[in-house]
């Protein structure tokens, strides 16, 4: 490749919005694909043995989570004839309700072997009816070496090509040429409102923030952040969350909900914190340190407009990324499980934490940035605070960021049962049961009493919003008096 061509490519990379969007999609999808391959293509098959069934046990249930395309080899020995059913999750619900169910496989005899290839990703249960007090032993071999999540891979591959196509279009599209035309021009200036000034500053800030460097960083952070999704999808992770016990209960409908909670966990913790801290440090601190703010404030721009534009820039990036990640997470999820009903509730549990965490960490980083006037110092201190809040804030639960992991274990179980965000929010405000767990109120309720239990969630929201607003107002006050040099 000649130097001239390379130079052209680099210039396009820096200036063309189409190329930048294409690059982000390409990087994000590629990294995501690598992550998903890591988790879904790895042979995870294995052997298992059922607990021996002794006389007197009438029904035995064992459950498997099988992906589309994976195979289970089953073998059973009994001292007498038994009946065996293989059921999918739907039939398991019917079975647990005592209703009539339709087994996928029904076998009778004392030596039963079968091979079953899952045609859909689902939870399957084996029910053994032991009416004759037989002693039964069984074993299975789960061949999940072909557990390819094809739908996700197709989806991501399509996106990779979409990204590449966009980049190609951007590169091919000729650069607009500006020509000077002699002549007398008369221009009329108009009044520019504060709102317009803020919007112009926000737009240029967003364009500047979409530098190739930040695109790379964002793609890495978010693709890395997708990892928990895949790890949770693994059967072992579900076992850790108590899935098997739940099936045995057998509240089978909860299985779907737990998947939601696993996905909700993605929004958790430090990923979003690091991202917001990084963006705020670069956008606000970087401008102050490099002297760009001095230049901007030499135009007809009030300091508060500059400040508001920074807030808008960070929050718009936060919101856009939230939506992108939500879609990226949801679409493979939909392909994988073929359920649409949890879409709204999932989006709500995803977006609310992102936006609140975004505001919370923006305000903290902003305050430290105007205080220190050093983006690196402010960023590192904010990161330290993020770690403290995430892992050591349990005595001060209201300060702990509202993250997906926080919502996932308890809340999303409820959330997934709902179809409308409105109902979901109502539940958020009213229900106390989940609050009990995710606020760890069990530790504190003895100290603070039942009121805390009742108002825990709204209080947390109010406390964190108040902290954010106070920090932003303080930052504005400091900035108004600050020398911009």
């Amino acid at each position, binding site marked *: 490749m000649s130097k001239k061509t390379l130079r052209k490519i680099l*210039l396009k990379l*820096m*200036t063309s919005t189409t190329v930048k969007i294409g690059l982000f999609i390409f990087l994000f999808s590629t990294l995501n694909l690598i992550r998903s391959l890591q988790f879904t293509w790895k042979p995870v098959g294995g052997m298992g043995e059922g607990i021996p069934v002794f006389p007197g046990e009438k029904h035995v249930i064992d459950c498997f989570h099988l992906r589309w395309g994976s195979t289970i080899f089953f073998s059973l020995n009994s001292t007498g004839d038994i009946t065996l059913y293989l059921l999918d999750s739907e039939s398991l619900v019917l079975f647990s309700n005592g209703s009539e169910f339709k087994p996928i496989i029904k076998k009778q005899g004392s030596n039963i072997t079968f091979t079953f290839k899952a045609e859909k990703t689902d939870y399957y249960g084996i029910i053994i009816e032991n009416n004759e007090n037989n002693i039964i032993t069984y074993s299975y071999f789960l061949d999940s070496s072909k557990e390819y999540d094809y739908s996700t891979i197709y989806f991501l591959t399509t996106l990779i090509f979409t990204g590449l196509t966009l980049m190609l279009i951007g590169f091919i599209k000729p*650069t*607009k*040429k*500006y*020509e*000077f035309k002699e002549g007398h*021009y008369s*221009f*009329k*200036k*108009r*009044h*520019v409102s504060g709102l317009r*000034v803020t919007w*112009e500053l926000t*737009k*240029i800030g967003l*364009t*500047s923030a*979409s*530098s*190739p460097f930040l695109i790379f960083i964002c793609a890495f952070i978010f693709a890395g952040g997708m990892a928990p999704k895949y790890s949770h999808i693994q059967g072992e992770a579900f076992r850790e969350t108590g899935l098997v016990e739940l099936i045995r209960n057998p509240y089978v409908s909860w299985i779907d909900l737990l998947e939601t909670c696993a996905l909700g966990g993605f929004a958790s913790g430090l990923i979003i914190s690091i991202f917001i801290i990084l963006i705020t440090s670069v956008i606000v601190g970087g401008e102050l340190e*490099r*002297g*760009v703010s*001095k*230049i901007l*404030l*030499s*135009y*007809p*721009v*009030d*300091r508060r407009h500059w400040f508001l534009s920074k807030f808008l820039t960070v929050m718009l990036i936060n919101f856009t990324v939230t939506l992108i990640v939500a879609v990226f997470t949801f679409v493979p999820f939909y392909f994988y499980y073929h359920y649409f009903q949890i879409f709204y509730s999932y989006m709500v549990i995803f977006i609310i934490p992102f936006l609140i965490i975004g505001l919370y960490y923006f305000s903290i980083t902003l305050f430290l940035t105007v205080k220190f006037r050093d983006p690196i110092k402010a960023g590192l201190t904010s990161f330290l605070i993020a770690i403290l809040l995430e892992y050591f804030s349990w005595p001060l639960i209201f300060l702990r960021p509202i993250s997906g992991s926080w919502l996932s274990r308890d809340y999303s179980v409820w959330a997934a049962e709902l179809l409308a965000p409105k109902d979901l929010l109502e539940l958020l405000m009213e229900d106390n049961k989940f609050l009990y767990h995710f606020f760890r109120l069990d530790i504190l309720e003895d100290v603070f009493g039942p009121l805390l239990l009742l108002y825990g969630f709204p209080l947390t929201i109010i406390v964190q919003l108040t902290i954010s607003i106070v920090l932003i107002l303080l930052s504005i006050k400091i900035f108004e*008096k600050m*020398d*911009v*040099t």
Partner: protein
Amino acid sequence: MEVGEKPIITIKNISKSFGDVVALKNINLKISEGIFGLIGPNGSGKSTLIKILLGLVKPDTGNVKIFGLDPFKNRREILKQVGVLHENMTFYEYITGIKYLIFVAKLYGFRRRDAEIKAIQMLKLVNLLDAAQRPIKTYSAGMKQRLGIAQALIGEPKLVFLDEPTANLDPEGRIELLEKIGEMANEQKTTFIIATHILPELEKIVDNIAIIYNGEILKTGSIQEISKILKTRTLKIYVREAEKLAKLIKSMPQVESIDFKHDQIIAKVTRPESFHNQLMEIARENNVEIFGIEPLYTKLEQIFLELTRGRK
């Protein structure tokens, strides 16, 4: 200190310190229409004074008025009529030159289409039209300086602050810029405040100056007025026999000091005109050929040296 008739800028008792460093000491100045030179070495307080005038830095004491308004209370009203070129301009690096200028034009109230035409005009003015679609990151220091000039003039301002405007510009660019400044000052009645330590170029266009040194205004007025303080001029004499002539003129009453090397004599003299006449006479009488005489420093440089001599 008042310069001119109708002051556009009034500065009263301005002082500013950054920690222990005193940047400005009790500055009083009135600046009216025309081209005003703020002259001083690096670190003398020129940029700080401009930042105070723009409402970027708050003074410890005193107040300033631009167009009769307080820049800290009426920022936008003032800045709508002001263009600024800061020293060491920093831009958004990943924006193209034209996009940046369109953005600035819009802040000054031009509609999208007008902003684009205005941006093209400015790029043409500073010879950057070919680089219009390149990101600023790829610009050289000189190109960034030219873009800085373009953004300072794009809002059709009545008052323009130029902090070290000729820095990073090639000789051709410097001449073009100074010509443009003179043209705008005459035709559009734009007032320019030019802060610089590069004096020779400024002398050609400024109406009035203020000499600032260690945060203090030492002198202000027109170059003609201030020139009156000049007691000596340093002259460079190009001659065939430098040593011989140096010895001959050393004892002249106008000569304060003299130095020579090869074919040049550097003489610091009082009453330069009478010195010139006598010098030519002595040279003729002694058959010494003089090729030329020129001031070693411009008048402005000489004034500056005269005023700052012995100060720290």
